[in-house]
């Protein structure tokens, strides 16, 4: 599994230098649904999942603090 993930990440990074996307070509990428940040209404889901599951983090949200957080 770890090996597969490593290969996947390397493949992604190697793709990075392939295409130079100009600002005027980002019409699709700039759409609200294409944003890489979590949606504001998704904040609550992340919080719930951090309480009800043994793991948390890497969601761009809070990683500690308060009762219930693990």
């Amino acid at each position, binding site marked *: 599994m770890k090996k597969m993930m490593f290969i996947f990440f390397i493949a992604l990074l190697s793709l990075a230098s392939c295409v130079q996307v100009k600002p005027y070509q980002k019409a699709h990428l700039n759409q*609200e649904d294409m944003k890489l940040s979590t949606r504001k209404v998704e904040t609550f889901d992340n919080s719930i999942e951090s309480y009800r599951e043994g793991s948390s983090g890497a969601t761009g949200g809070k990683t500690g603090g308060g009762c219930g957080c693990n």
Partner: protein
Amino acid sequence: MAKPAVDADVIKMIPMKKSILLLLLLVSATAYSQDYPVKVLDEKEVDFLFNYYEQDGNHSPVTGGIGSEKLDCMTPLTIVTVPFDTLNTISVSVGLDYYTSASCDRIDRFITSASSQYLSAASSRDTRTHFDATYSRKNIEATNDKGIMVGFSNEFDVNSFSTGLHYTLSSKDENRQLGLKATAFYDVWKLIYPGEFRNGDEYRYGNDETDYDKDSRLTSTFTATWSQVLTRNLQFLITTDVVYQNGILNSPFHRVYFNDGYTVLNPDTNWMLVAKTMRPEKLPRTRLKIPIGLRLNYYLADRVSLRLYYRYYFDDFDIRSHTFSIEVPVKVNSWLSVYPLWRYYEQTAAKYFAPFGEHALTTSWEPAEEFYTSDYDLSRLINRKYGGGFRISPVYGIHKWKFKNNSLVFKTIEGRYAIYRRSDGLRAESVSINFGFVF
């Protein structure tokens, strides 16, 4: 004499050409703005969010891994973002969590009527208030952004203080971005033990600040992110957190029942539970957690995109987890977008976990292990989530109020609904809504 006539024709033609030109511009601008939302940099934003969450299950850690987990929680949250100019921005969020919990009502499960005046009623519901503020400053070329944040939250048994720094570096073409963040949370806990343990001198009880001993926890987090535009339809974000916790990691009111030979047939009525060997949950005072997440967004076709997320997580409690989620937003028209969502989560059990009555005792009736918990959040489990959401966001807003020197635009409504089904029987539902305004 012909010359003035020509001039007159020219004079008539110019406004006509102008109006055709203006019309064409308007049409193209409308079409353009429908496809490509225009972002006004100096807009101040206010978001009013609300969430309702409810759950029910039968593995409450307060009663040792058996008993009701019924809980309802209402969470209003307000986020205000104010850019002072094109470089400096302040964002403030203020929120409230009001919850009622059946299991917390059992902290004093077997205590006498004399002592039940203290925690039973109060602990069945609680309110958590929280406040966070972030200041960010971009450089003039807008290639980097740095900032500082502070936060505070308060509830009956926990006060939490937080602070942090962030730095973001973007390439000039904005195709690549590196983000670094360091945060620290300092939590102060009142040590509320199960009622059975608060009768003697060893543990106190009451509702005053001085009635409880206190303990603290420091959570330090370092976050690194890398985002990259791959093609005009594809971009990704890798996030890694390194989280180190030091201090109290157990919840003192969580019970753990041991394997002492007593059998409890019905935990709600069988008083054998009083005689059964029990201790408050005990966990190590340090924990290292490392999650690695990958988000991949792909513009699949006209009106349809894919939001994919995968996370691998490991820690020194021996929990390993995989998370995979997918959302498929479909743009129904220029102002409405809807999406179904699905999330799959699985984890291994923490090495300190055992179900009710399964932790071993020594021959002298002491716990055989140094650390023990019966909290099913730390058990081996699979959690599935299904749901969907929508976003209403017309180009010129839903409604506009004009004032003397300003205007307020009701810009967005976002909604989200999710159902959780956990493999241990816990069922939960969550509804969230956001009303977004700009002024």
